[in-house]
């Protein structure tokens, strides 16, 4: 007979020492927490990411938010939502009315960005997402709303932000994707759509790419994102 743990990566069937957690699973939890703490501090290497992208003939540019370092990033979310002056000037050099802009942000796990962004994007283009006219933007010390600033400067119709999610114990490298129609600073979270948990044990690249392409096309067709745009792909297919 199979065990519960054959069905889920969750920490099931841990046993009990008088009802409490036995020493072995306790120490495993501690180790996972230590790794997640380390992942939060892992820096985004825009140079190496840029190199990987250029090998696929994707143009990319590195940018930086107004948060100068991790400590400031953690305590000042407002700064992580804004480009610094040099980065804003760099984006303006590419200003042209653009239907789609892609922004890669380190978020809380640059590890996730390094592991998953390139293969995930590759899958997304194969699934039918048209490549953006301008560069892919790689932003350090950035939050989801950094896409609003980039999109506003470019007058983009739709911005896709691919970001490292807050590290969990089982997954220090989970990637999230946010779609925002008509991005401009001050957009609310209810005006976005989100695909989360893209990692080896979570949502596969295939599945996430199909969802993203579906949502992007629906957003373009209905000219909106947010709570009014539901992921009804599963119903349409069945």
């Amino acid at each position, binding site marked *: 007979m*199979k065990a*519960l*743990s054959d*069905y*889920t*990566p*969750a*920490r*099931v*069937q*841990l046993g*009990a020492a*008088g*009802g*409490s*957690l036995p020493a072995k*699973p306790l120490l495993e*939890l*501690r180790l*996972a*927490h230590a790794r*997640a*703490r380390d*992942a*939060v501090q892992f820096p985004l290497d825009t140079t190496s990411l840029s190199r990987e992208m250029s090998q696929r003939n994707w143009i990319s540019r590195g940018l930086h938010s107004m948060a100068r370092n991790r400590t400031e990033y*953690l*305590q*000042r*979310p*407002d700064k992580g939502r804004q480009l610094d002056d040099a980065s804003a000037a760099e984006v303006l050099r590419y200003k042209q009315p653009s239907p789609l802009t892609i922004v890669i942000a380190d978020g*809380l796990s640059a590890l996730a960005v390094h592991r998953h962004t390139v293969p995930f994007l590759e899958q997304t283009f194969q699934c039918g997402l048209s490549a953006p006219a301008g560069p892919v933007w790689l932003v350090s010390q950035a939050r989801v709303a950094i896409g609003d600033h980039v999109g506003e400067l470019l007058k983009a119709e739709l911005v896709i932000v691919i970001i490292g*999610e*807050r*590290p*969990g*114990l*089982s*997954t220090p490298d*989970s990637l999230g994707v946010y779609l925002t129609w008509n991005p401009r600073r*001050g957009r*609310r*979270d*209810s005006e976005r759509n*989100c695909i*989360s*948990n893209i*990692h080896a*044990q*979570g*949502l596969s690249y295939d*599945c996430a790419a199909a969802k993203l392409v579906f949502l992007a096309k629906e957003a373009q067709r209905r000219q909106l994102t*947010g*709570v009014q745009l*539901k*992921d*009804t*792909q*599963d*119903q349409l297919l*069945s």
Partner: protein
Amino acid sequence: MSGYRTVLGSRVYQFPDLKMLLAKATPLRSGDELAGIAAASAEERVAAQMALADLPLREFLSEPLIPYESDEVTRLIFDSHDDAAFSAVSHLTVGEFRDWLLDERADGGTLGRLAPGLIPEQVAAVSKLMRLQDLVKVARKVSVVSRFRTTVGLPGRLSTRLQPNHPADDARAIAAAIIDGLMLGSGDAVIGVNPASDSPAIVHELLTLIDAIRQRYEIPTQSCVLAHITTQLEALRQGAPVDLLFQSIAGTEAANRSFGVNIALLREAWQAASELKRGTVGQQVMYFETGQGSALSANAHHSLDQQTCEARAYGLARYFQPMLVNTVVGFIGPEYLFNGKQILRAALEDHFCGKLLGLPMGCDICYTNHAEADDDDMDAILTMLAAAGVNYIMGVPGADDIMLNYQSSSFHDALYLRSVFGLRPAPEFEAWVAARRPELREMLALIEA
């Protein structure tokens, strides 16, 4: 009144309005610093607390902190205020009210009758003067009981929400986590899944899954899939077996707008779920989650401190006579609650404020990996909240939520509290555990089916 002041020796501390007085009187937390409204020094904070202690409770009723005209939460709070119930304490200042609450004569019945007479701002104000043991001692006197298929919140009981999340909403993985939790006595407050997807079809599928397990093993509990409320409503209209309807709420109209909800929508949802009449011992169908910092995070806090904003969310919640309300206290991150000490304080404040306002308060005792906190901090919160009489906590396999990527409390944590404090699950569920739990082993076969 044009302002408040405290004189300390040669120093005069001025607080131009009530909003600022409350913010400066709030025990230190990173969110108020981020908002630029925290006290500038430790002395200024105590000076503000002293001015607050001298303030008549009645003054909160004369001028809403967020204007009545522009905020529907304010309107709900003021329109539903019960002046007759308030008369028991209407002569007191905030400081006197603290002492009154601690007095043995203010027993559970007295505090229960007082609840509709209090507005959230008064409750938040008094909590700012209280130390942790005060928050425990007063909250412990109040029991708020709610009912659907189980009775949650009775004295001597501690319930749990079984939270069997999976990053891809895999039905068999979720079923496996449910079985693991049930075998460890978890799930009497609700079996509640946070779905990764916001699709009505997935919500429908997960509700059907939980309902099948519940019916097959005749488990007295309720289920919930915590998608956006509009998604749950869509599933409900498609015929999904909806027990409780969930929504995250906050204490201002603008913050709720950022969640994509308003009072009319919540009312519509409340009515739709109530009409299903799926409860057995009661029909309380709403489930709300809240958390300090959500209004600021949506830039919708009106320069009000985050703890007062949070208490206002309870003012909104109580209108719907919810089955479950819990603060997700450490989820929002270190920008709002920096470390274990701040999370602990917030957990006890939220539980106290909710209970005093008449809510069946539970708590998601949790932290994220970018906060300065660890499992020792969670143990301190668990232990103090159990002493305070919290209605329920979360049950997550190994404390590790593999979908939401944060650490909550585990099935084992609930067993720890039940063992140390002699607490028992909800009576209906306790009877079921005794009679039916041995059968759970066969459930493994059910996963394959």
